């Protein structure tokens, strides 16, 4: 009897088998055509596609559960609140935060960084002349908010240099730390290069000087599980739509130690305890940071995306993505005149590239006629582009649902581009 129970338990514990054909059927958009050809979607770093379960969760909410949350005591309002808060719990468990009060729902990773920069700015966390460290490979979302704050508070932004492979030069990072350094804000995985940064070491070093660290995890979350307690980061931000969830929803994780002391970023409904015309007292975490009616359906959809992701063994997904990365890198290396930008040892499935004498706009336009979606341009990392001396690159970014056959189509498309512009 007990043996049978153990078997049953094992079945319930086991993860879904990583079957690419089955997985692709979960994403309805992957079976559509573009320009008369089957869609080959290789722009996942810009936004990932959504499984049916996420689409269903959003539809189900509007069809059966829609009401405002945290307000009414009527059935629907309670139900909607329950769904939304259970999504928060899923996020908390997924990233292993200490408590749900450390999970703030925001609009995007960008808004999360703006929340932190504005709130820290308002609480006089920074004194004039203090320093914030970011890196050369930051997305504009992790540059501009700090630049705005630096202008307002007279702070100095210090930039960690990178090497030609697109890796942070760790010794240079250590050298940048001074007694004026108040915050380190670094991208976990680079959107333009795919570089996975040594964030554990960065955090350890920063913490040895009592400096908190914010990680921009927008490009990490779609690829692997992140444990914020194990990393010991002080803030972690990411967006829902890049990790198979809806657009318009993002997460700010922050240690209670900081969030508790930080003042609200926006004022309004749902974030207050008591309001008089003389004075307002604020609600507890996390609601203190969530003014106004939130993106309820988006939060619920993000919860469904996390459930979907967690059906699989993370190792299966990573192995598959790494196989794609290895394959596309090998194939591209055989193409004469093609140069891969970003060749870090530790890399996620993103390949930025340029081809001699062919503009990325031309590459992207021709490839699109075969239904292949890649990104071209500066990828919102203009300082990084400047480092490599390239105003624009082409980028193919992969998700676990992409196939080696799709890589073959991309490579074929690139040869076609070369032929047309030769």
């Amino acid at each position: 009897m007990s043996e049978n129970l153990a078997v049953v338990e094992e079945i319930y514990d086991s993860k879904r088998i990583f079957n690419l054909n089955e997985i692709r059927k979960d994403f309805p958009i992957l079976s559509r055509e573009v320009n008369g050809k089957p869609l080959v979607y290789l722009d996942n770093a810009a936004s990932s596609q959504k499984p049916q379960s996420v689409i269903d969760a959003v539809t189900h909410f509007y069809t059966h559960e829609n009401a405002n949350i945290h307000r009414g005591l009527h059935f629907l309002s309670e139900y909607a609140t329950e769904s939304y808060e259970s999504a928060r719990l899923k996020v908390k468990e997924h990233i292993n935060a200490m408590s749900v009060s450390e999970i703030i729902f925001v609009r995007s990773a960008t808004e999360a960084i703006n929340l932190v920069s504005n709130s820290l700015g308002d609480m006089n966390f920074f004194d004039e002349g203090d320093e914030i460290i970011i890196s050369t490979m930051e997305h504009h979302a992790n540059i501009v908010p700090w630049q705005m704050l630096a202008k307002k508070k007279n702070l100095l932004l210090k930039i960690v240099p990178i090497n030609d492979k697109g890796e942070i030069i760790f010794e240079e990072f250590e050298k940048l730390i001074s007694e004026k350094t108040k915050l380190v804000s670094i991208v976990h995985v680079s959107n333009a290069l795919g570089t996975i940064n040594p964030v554990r070491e960065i955090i350890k070093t920063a913490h040895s000087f009592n400096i908190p660290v914010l990680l921009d995890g927008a490009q990490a979350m779609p690829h692997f599980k992140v444990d914020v307690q194990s990393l010991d980061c002080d803030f972690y931000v990411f967006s829902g739509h890049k990790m198979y969830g809806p657009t318009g929803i993002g997460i700010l994780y922050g240690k209670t130690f900081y969030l508790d002391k930080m003042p609200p970023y926006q004022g309004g409904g749902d974030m207050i305890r008591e309001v008089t015309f003389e004075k307002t007292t604020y609600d507890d975490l996390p609601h203190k940071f969530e003014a106004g009616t939130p993106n309820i359906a988006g939060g619920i959809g993000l919860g469904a995306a996390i459930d979907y992701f967690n059906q699989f063994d993370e190792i299966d997904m990573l192995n598959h993505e790494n196989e794609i990365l290895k394959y596309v890198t090998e194939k591209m290396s055989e193409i004469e005149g093609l140069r891969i930008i970003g060749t870090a040892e530790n890399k996620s499935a993103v390949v930025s590239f340029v081809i001699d004498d062919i503009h990325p706009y031309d590459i992207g336009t021709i490839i699109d006629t075969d239904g292949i979606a890649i990104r071209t341009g500066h990828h919102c990392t203009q300082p990084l582009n400047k480092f490599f001396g390239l105003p624009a690159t082409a980028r193919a970014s992969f998700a676990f649902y992409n196939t080696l056959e799709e890589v073959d189509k991309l490579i074929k498309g690139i040869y076609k581009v070369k032929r047309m512009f030769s």
Partner: protein
Amino acid sequence: MTIQQNQDEIIEEFESCLDWEDKYALVIKYGRELEPLPEQHRIEKNKLSGCQSQVWINAEFVDGKVKLQADSDATIVKGLISLLVKVYSNQTPEDILSTPPHFIKKIGIDNHLSPTRKNGLGSMLKQIQMYAVAFKAMGTK
């Protein structure tokens, strides 16, 4: 040739294209045949701002007509601007402003008009029309 005649010529030429590849091959050919932009006109003032590629458009008002010269670092964009130059260069500001570029839709490159295509046909067209407006004002003074 009138603007209309220029457009008709382009439409006829593109009619022979069987698929996207043919169409872009022709756009690329136009790009390669575009008269080079003199170096003195490759200046910030003539540059359209955007994120995808660099585009320069220079306009001069000669004998009551707008003379256009342009360039881009992307060949397809250069081809698109070359089509606009063929249609609108050496025409009066009045004609430029009163003749919409219906050939764009006809030859099926209107996907390049979308606002997400920074430096796409839309912003180039707007720039040409703005030159025409400015020259028209000069002409009536």
